[in-house]
């Protein structure tokens, strides 16, 4: 599949951290199956660190690879660090994504943020200023 880098293909072939965390501390749900992408990110928090991160994803190769990649990137990071992971960071870690996929299937960092916000909400923690998840509960499918 020439459109994807070897790194993307590696994560697609062997996705890391697939599955649910039964007693998750936070769950982030982004995307919309109508648009072809849906990601659920589960986190387990210990102190201020993400002890465990898992995902379930309905979507294309890029969606699965970014989901897998974000779990690896986020695991062990502090919440503050994890919140700073951007779409671009995920794409970069994968050696790049096709232009057409940059927006449509690169929801993983949003998913992670969403999971952290869910954790904060559950625990009455005020989220830091300026955190916004554009793709959450989207009504219109994003393109390109």
């Amino acid at each position, binding site marked *: *599949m020439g459109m994807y880098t070897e790194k993307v293909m590696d994560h697609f072939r062997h996705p890391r951290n697939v599955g649910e965390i039964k007693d998750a501390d936070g769950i982030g749900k982004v995307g919309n*199956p109508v648009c*072809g992408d*849906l990601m659920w990110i589960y986190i387990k928090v210990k102190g201020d660190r993400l002890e465990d991160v898992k995902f*379930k994803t*309905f*979507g294309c190769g890029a*969606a699965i690879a970014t989901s897998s990649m974000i779990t690896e990137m986020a695991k062990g990071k502090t919440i503050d660090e994890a919140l700073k992971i951007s779409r671009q960071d995920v794409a970069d870690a994968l050696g790049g994504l096709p232009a*057409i996929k940059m927006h449509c299937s690169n929801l993983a960092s949003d998913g992670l943020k969403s999971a952290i916000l869910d954790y904060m909400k559950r625990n009455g923690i005020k989220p830091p200023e300026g955190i916004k998840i554009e793709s959450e509960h989207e009504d219109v499918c994003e393109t390109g």
Partner: protein
Amino acid sequence: MAQPNQIYMDYSSYCPIEPRVLKEMLPYYERYFGNPSSPHSFGVQMKAGLEAAREKVASLINAEKPSEVIFTSGSTESINAALRGAAFRNKEKGNRIIASSIEHISVRNTLKYLAKNGFEVVYLPVDEYGVVSVESLKGAMNERTVLVTVMYANNEVGTVEPIKEIADIAHEKNAILHTDATAAIGKMPIDVNRDGIDMMSISSGDMYGPYGIGALYLRRGTRFEPLILGGGQEAGFRSGTENVAGAVGMGKAAEIAKAEMAQEAERLSKIRDRIIKGTKEAITYSFLNGHPTLRLPNNINMRFSFIEGESLVLSLDMEGIAASSGSACSSKTLEPSHVLLAMGIPHEEAQGSLLLSLGRWNTPQDAQKLLEVLPNIVRGLREMSPIAPPGVR
């Protein structure tokens, strides 16, 4: 042509050239040359090759005269030329154009252009199998209808349309009937006279000929204006120095198709049916898209609930099987197949479609191999899917 361990089931995206076709073309690269319009002897062989090719294409579709076959650069050009040429040339008659809602994007985009330029385009619904509603065509026809365009068979779901019936209805109001036969040509017998076709777009590539050449069938007397203007080649209907080698290739492809189509259709439909049956048996929540019997012999289009199509195609590719999907991610527009949506399949289900198109080099063993790997792939993707109900694999 593929590597020995690879299986190609994506013939509707791109068809390899048939070696017998290439063999016929090579002399026009290696030996003969000259402008077919030139009055000297170099041009003569070229002209002869071009006209022999035209006759072969005409014979495949049972055109009355070879001159009704105009060579173009492919189906997309033929479609653009046919729709624009018929619409603009007949605009005194009226401005209504009627099309099915499952046309190829080249038809859709040309119709959008015409809609922006003063034409009123009416789209006909299809049923759950993708069959165009003849009743709604009757309702949509009026005296101002200049053109009806319905594809001969759909390239995604394989459904064959009732063209003869549609042509008769169009002709009652003196409208021109165009059909995009790109998906059907060489796969089933097409007879422009029996079927009442006035204009038909076909490409060489889709019948094992070279890409870069196609044809527009233009029934004698059909009022049409050319899209590409210039030196007046192709009787003035399509200018530009002729691609003789390409035309010769298309001619040979047509000749082979005519001779071998019936037998090949039978062979492929057996493989097709085995895959459809095997998939349905092995995988829960799997459904056939398109009509169970009014179907191209080489087309399999299945959908699998709870998973997405590109990841399916990607996984199959990892197993050495090339396929297509109807998913948004596989299209340039990032929209799921308008064909599946028109058939009433919900968006998320449409995303999970897999298109397997068979061809000359597929064998029953390919079906076997596919049926071995597909269930595991679907299971793996469903395990990863947040929308798969617990236990469904």
